[in-house]
């Protein structure tokens, strides 16, 4: 039915099967949309946030998807600026994941603010000293970059590409993509960092506060670093899930191995920096403000020392050791374990730097307030996940996301085997060069 839209030389399931499979995902999406409108119409009283938890699940989700979406900027940096040409075979997918993550982050922010119609004030009345202003500016600009990077992929759809103007536009955009990628890397460095700065500058909150260089606390650099380390891991994790669902190999192992190796070294250096930062904070910064390390991890039912061990040891040291060793990367089980742990590490770190910052009492006569999200918060947080699945499915179906797919999965139909194989091979020649 939609075969005219499907890239040449690839196999896709019937449209009806796709619709059937996406049915539950669409249901989750609609559930999220209902919750989103409830929040917009009735206000943030629909959430379980309160005056102690001004930042909660949404801001965690926001920080997390931005960190994990960092795969796009880092892969782009490696591909276009550093010149790791091999990564052209995964860059489309990284851009797609980045686009989903960043559009989700903007949507979540639009729901999270108390007066959504005044959201533009952050630009118009910008306070240049606020980390959040820097986040908003760079986030919006980088979303534009991701849109520009995603656009050529859409234009490469078989039917759109037939129109000469769009074909030329896509070609021209590819030609100067390095300029956009460089701008994206510059913007990403600042907004990933600013998100770390959001917590790090809070000198009224000893759990979050860090010293630093000039106006940037150490968390500024740690957040950028961890995004560059864990973002590519997220891209790889989703690639493997996509391969499992489609039952196809979509990217060659050497490409994945290269990206994983670089991510591994980023993670290793990051975790060393993180350990130094944690040690200095525990030994110098916090005691100077009257706190001992154990104060932040005791006298409450949830935030124990386990969170620090989980983040640094289980989700930091272990995956970095696996990813930097060739043996670790070549074993599928240990490789996937490392990738998943690295992703989980970013999630745990962002959780601590948002939720635990809010929870840890500062006044001596206050306790740890606890929080659990309302269903509206959960639904609106799952909304971007559902939207992401749908966009990946549609992009995979109609756009040449994986340049190596044709080569790795030659189509052999019963009646025109030779023809199809020939088409597949010619497709393999065209796609990677244009990706």
């Amino acid at each position, binding site marked *: 039915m939609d075969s005219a839209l499907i890239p040449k030389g690839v196999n896709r399931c019937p449209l009806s099967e796709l619709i059937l499979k996406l049915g539950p995902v669409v249901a989750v999406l609609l559930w999220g949309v209902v919750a989103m409108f409830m929040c917009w119409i009735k206000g943030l009283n629909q959430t379980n946030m309160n005056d102690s938890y001004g930042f909660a699940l949404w801001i965690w989700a926001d920080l997390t998807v931005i960190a994990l979406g960092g795969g796009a900027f880092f892969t782009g940096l490696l591909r276009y600026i550093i010149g790791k040409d091999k990564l052209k075979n995964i860059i489309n997918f990284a851009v797609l994941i980045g686009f989903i993550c960043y559009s989700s982050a903007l949507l979540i922010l639009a729901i999270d603010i108390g007066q959504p119609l005044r959201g533009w004030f952050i630009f118009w009345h910008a306070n*240049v000293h606020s980390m959040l202003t820097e986040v908003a500016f760079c986030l919006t600009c980088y979303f534009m970059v991701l849109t520009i990077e995603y656009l050529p992929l859409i234009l490469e759809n078989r039917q759109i590409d*037939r129109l000469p103007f769009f074909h030329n536009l896509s070609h021209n955009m590819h030609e100067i993509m390095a300029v*956009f990628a460089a701008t994206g890397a510059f913007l990403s460095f600042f907004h990933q960092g600013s998100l770390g700065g959001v917590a790090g500058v809070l000198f009224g909150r000893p759990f979050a506060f860090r010293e630093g260089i000039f106006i940037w606390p150490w968390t500024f650099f740690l957040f950028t670093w961890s995004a560059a380390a864990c973002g590519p891991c997220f891209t790889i994790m989703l690639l493997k899930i996509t391969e499992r669902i489609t039952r196809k190999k979509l990217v060659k192992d050497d490409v994945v191995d290269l990206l994983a190796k670089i991510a591994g070294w980023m993670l290793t250096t990051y975790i060393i920096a993180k350990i130094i930062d944690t040690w200095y904070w525990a030994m110098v910064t916090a005691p100077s403000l009257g706190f001992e390390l154990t104060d932040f991890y005791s006298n409450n039912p949830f935030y124990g020392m386990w969170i620090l061990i989980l983040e640094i040891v289980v989700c930091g040291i272990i995956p970095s050791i696996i990813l930097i060793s060739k043996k670790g990367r070549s074993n599928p089980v240990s490789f996937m374990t490392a990738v998943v742990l690295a992703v989980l590490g970013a999630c745990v770190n962002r959780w601590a730097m948002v939720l635990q910052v809010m929870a840890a009492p500062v006044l001596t006569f206050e306790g740890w307030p606890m929080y659990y999200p309302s269903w509206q918060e959960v639904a609106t947080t799952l909304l971007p996940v559902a939207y992401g699945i749908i966009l990946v499915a549609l992009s995979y179906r109609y756009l040449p996301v994986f340049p190596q797919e044709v080569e790795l999965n030659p189509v052999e139909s019963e009646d025109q085997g030779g023809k199809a194989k020939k088409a597949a091979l010619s497709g393999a020649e065209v796609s990677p060069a244009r990706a």
Partner: protein
Amino acid sequence: MFPFNFEWIWDMSHLVFMGGLWFALNILGLGMTYCIIKAAIDTSKGKGGEHS
């Protein structure tokens, strides 16, 4: 955001921060403008026809 916003001050913070913003926006805007105009010219010259 603009010098005519009343909270604007001509200081280093504003020049660096807003300078960075407008620099990035200009690169994106000019880059896309170049791509679109060049695509229009290429199309008028008959390029890209082999794919149609």
